[in-house]
């Protein structure tokens, strides 16, 4: 088997058994990156750094030093993470050339766990998007195609580069960030596992902010077990992030017992949208059957405020973004476009520096916070958010996890939905509720569409109960037996 086909867990075993070194594993991934540059998944390759980190890992292993959970495993990092000495631009023109002198807590944790950095991955500008089309570094091509002569497809977004890199076997895992579905939806579109932990589980320190009350880092991997391993290395309380929660990090991998007998799985009746392809519903029903066959108890539930989640999200997230992105003003770092006055400099810099989607959200955000509109929009949206959280809270009385589709469609063609923001925003309709409620959720590849494109199912868990969520996801993965491969066409 090619080294790049290995899961993190298998690579861990191979490294431990001395079958190959981290340098070899890393070299295999670097060469895969070279061969698939046309996908534009990476915006920055750090081959030299990767080789150095891999060599250092091999030395640690040879010395018999304490080894981390990700020891010698090469991974990709979304460009939203600040990485010391390596560009971090959120794929925005306005952060042109920005190279932070500091390292985010999550990536620091990963390097401390022995992981090796391959490079920075493409993404929607400032994580705003569901297609990766808003990146200043250009679109990412999904390694999956609908048939041999199908159009180039989007990988989903915003963590599109990370999902594509993992799906195309360029990286064994990748960090993503999820604000309204930015890990789970690209995970589903690219046929990989995408996991968003409970809000507060991973530190946001050093992650370029989009919407502070929603942003969470999480892993994109090829298996549920890999996601459990990688999240374990990313998570942890961080005093530098006031919203990071002081909870111990459990052994997520140990939670994958394969046994879900007696667990109660909620199936919410509201997770249906107009025009949703029938095969999404069919896959969902199959998912229900798999879990039922594995011994889970299926409970029909109602999350009555679900339909208000998307509009509330598209008020709260832009509101926070409009403030979070105010710091990109051309004064201290990144792009500056001069002007005759201070106001001109601001206007020129921000007009040129931000793309259309970011500008749209900044304007929406400024609008919903402005005098006279705050109560009608922002405050109302916060009330909706509280109702949605309450819906889930009530559901936990009768169920342990909730099962839904991840997205209302499979990957679509590049360029599609670009002139219709509402259609684009609908991608997030199933992922946004868990984001608003701060809940852990995971997308597991569960089947193929009639076009041969991957589809995902989502499992949402209780706050800080990633373990149960992972356990159910592991069983789902086993039952779905998703083995389709985007590069070889093998199914």
């Amino acid at each position, binding site marked *: 088997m090619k080294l790049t086909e290995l899961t993190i867990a298998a690579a861990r075993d191979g490294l431990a058994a001395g079958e190959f070194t981290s340098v070899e594993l890393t070299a295999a991934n670097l060469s895969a990156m070279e061969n698939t540059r046309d996908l534009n998944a990476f915006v920055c390759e750090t081959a030299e750094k990767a080789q150095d980190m891999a060599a250092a890992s091999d030395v640690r292993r040879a010395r018999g030093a304490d080894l981390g959970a990700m020891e010698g495993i090469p991974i990709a990092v979304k460009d939203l993470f600040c990485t010391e000495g390596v560009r971090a631009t959120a794929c925005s023109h306005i952060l042109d050339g920005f190279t932070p002198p500091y390292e985010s807590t999550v990536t620091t944790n990963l390097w401390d766990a022995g992981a090796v950095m391959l490079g920075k991955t493409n993404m929607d500008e400032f994580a705003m998007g569901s297609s990766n089309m808003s990146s200043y570094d250009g679109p990412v091509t999904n390694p999956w195609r609908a048939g041999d002569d199908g159009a180039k497809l989007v990988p989903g977004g915003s963590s599109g580069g990370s999902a594509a890199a993992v799906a195309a076997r360029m990286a064994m895992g990748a960090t993503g960030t999820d604000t309204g579905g930015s890990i789970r939806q690209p995970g589903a579109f690219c046929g990989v596992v995408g996991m968003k932990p409970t809000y507060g589980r991973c530190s946001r*320190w*050093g992650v370029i*902010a989009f919407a502070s009350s929603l942003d969470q880092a999480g892993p994109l991997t090829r298996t549920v077990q890999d996601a459990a391993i990688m999240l374990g290395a990313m998570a942890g309380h961080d*005093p530098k*992030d006031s919203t990071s929660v002081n909870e111990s990090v459990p052994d997520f991998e140990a939670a994958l017992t394969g046994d879900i007998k007696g667990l109660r799985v909620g199936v919410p009746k509201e997770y249906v949208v107009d025009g949703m392809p029938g095969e999404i519903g069919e896959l969902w029903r199959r998912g229900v059957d798999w879990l039922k066959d594995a011994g889970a108890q299926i409970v029909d539930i109602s999350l009555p405020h679900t339909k208000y989640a998307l509009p509330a999200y598209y008020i709260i997230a832009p509101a926070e973004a409009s403030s979070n992105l*105010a*710091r990109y*003003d051309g004064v201290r770092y990144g792009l500056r476009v001069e002007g005759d006055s201070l106001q001109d400099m601001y206007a020129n810099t921000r007009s040129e520096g931000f793309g259309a989607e970011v500008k749209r959200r900044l304007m929406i955000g400024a609008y919903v916070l402005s*005098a006279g509109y*705050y109560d009608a929009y922002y405050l109302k949206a916060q009330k909706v958010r509280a109702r949605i959280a309450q819906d889930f809270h009530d559901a936990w009385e009768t169920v342990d996890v909730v099962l839904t589709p991840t997205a209302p469609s499979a990957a679509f063609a590049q360029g599609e939905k670009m002139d219709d923001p509402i259609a684009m925003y609908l991608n997030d309709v199933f992922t946004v509720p868990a984001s608003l409620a701060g809940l852990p959720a995971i997308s597991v590849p569960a089947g193929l569409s009639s076009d041969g494109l991957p589809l995902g199912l989502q499992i949402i868990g209780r706050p800080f109960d990633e373990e149960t969520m992972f356990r159910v996801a592991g069983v789902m993965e086993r039952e779905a037996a998703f083995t389709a491969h985007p590069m070889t066409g093998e199914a």
Partner: protein
Amino acid sequence: MSKLLKGRTGDWEIVIGLEIHAQSITKAKLFSGASTAFGAEPNTQVSLVDAAMPGMLPVLNEESVRQAVRSGLALNSKINLHSVFARKNYFYPDLPQGYQISQFESPIVGEGELEIDLADGEVVTVGIERLHLEQDAGKSLHDQHPTKTYIDLNRSGITLMEIVSKPDMRSSEEAVEYATKVRSILRYIDTCDGNMQEGSLRCDANVSVRRPGEALGTRCEIKNLNSFRYLRQAIDHEAVRQVEILEDGGKIAQETRLYDTAKGETRSMRSKEEAHDYRYFPDPDLLPIDLSEEFVARMKATLPELPDARKERFVTAYALSPYDASVLVSERDTADYFETVAAGRDSKLAANWVISDLFGRLNKLTIPVSASPVSAEALGELIDLISDQTISGRIAKDVFSEMFESGEGAKAIVEKKGLRQVTDEGAIRGQVQSVIDDNPDKVADYRGGNDKLVGWFMGQVMKASQGKANPGMVNKLLREMLSA
């Protein structure tokens, strides 16, 4: 005393509310570990958070919370156990985040009130609306380059306590007394050094005028007054400006104004139309502050005796007038100085010496009482010499001058210069007799009914004794011998 402003068409009442921005005494900034020391090289005390680098997050400095709670308690105000940080959004180069983290709907301190003493003895109560925590901005330096503005972020992120009064003041005197009192209290409890030159304490004044008894007029806000003198001048000027407009049939435009210290007038900075929409919303990077009653009680226990309590004690224990007492307690150092001087002595005499003589001298030279060349013990020694009649009060003034200049002790000066008071009745009688003998016509005048001449005789005898004769004895002997 009428506080009304006389216009051409009648009387006007001035209505003033103050916002005081007090830099909190904390080693680190409100949301970062960077130092707050004043006077460092530009941009040397700036953390990644203060410079608003991408991905940086604020972490609340608990010391800032303690200082705000202590300040709220000392200002007789309600502590809100639950408070929330909010973002105030606006663009300016010295505001790196593009927003100031402040408190909006839920400040850490709520309503309270302060009593202020005016010079004429009137006591005025001024309501406090709130005290909230917020970040200071950096500094824009416009004078370093002909066309560019430089930014110094050392101040960016330092803890400010904004103390907002109700519109309860009716004259610039009241406003200055209120601000002085707030400053005094904060200095007592060490939550703000009150140094206005360094910008540790700044005032914004909201000023409006109205006919007595009528509804509030349209107000103008005068920003960034960095001395009490400017505060007074700005209010006085602004009130007259508004009255002139109204008496000419005009309307006051609600706006923000700046006080031009060179010209002594306020001028428009931005109109209501140009006012920012700050788009406040709760800061999602920070959790609300939730305090326990027990924490508040612990903070209360850290407070020293405050100016009001000390003033009460000075009035009862030292029999001082409320005004004298309030002058003495306004600074902790001054009150301590006075208490040392007054210990075991005539407290009124001590108060007079401290307020009139010592303060007079110190204020002229703008020396703080802590740096006085005459220590409290030394002034006490001088007062002892008066009390035991070693020297007269008049001679004591000269001795005090000498002490102030040379730093020598009172006894040493009196001995060296032979200033000891003459209380020997025989000697004084002799001097009185010679003055009487030398001025027969004045004596005749006096005896003819011109009682006022006794003062003139008094002066002659004192002059003859080089001021050393005991004035009481001279007076007594003069009256006795002139009448003989």
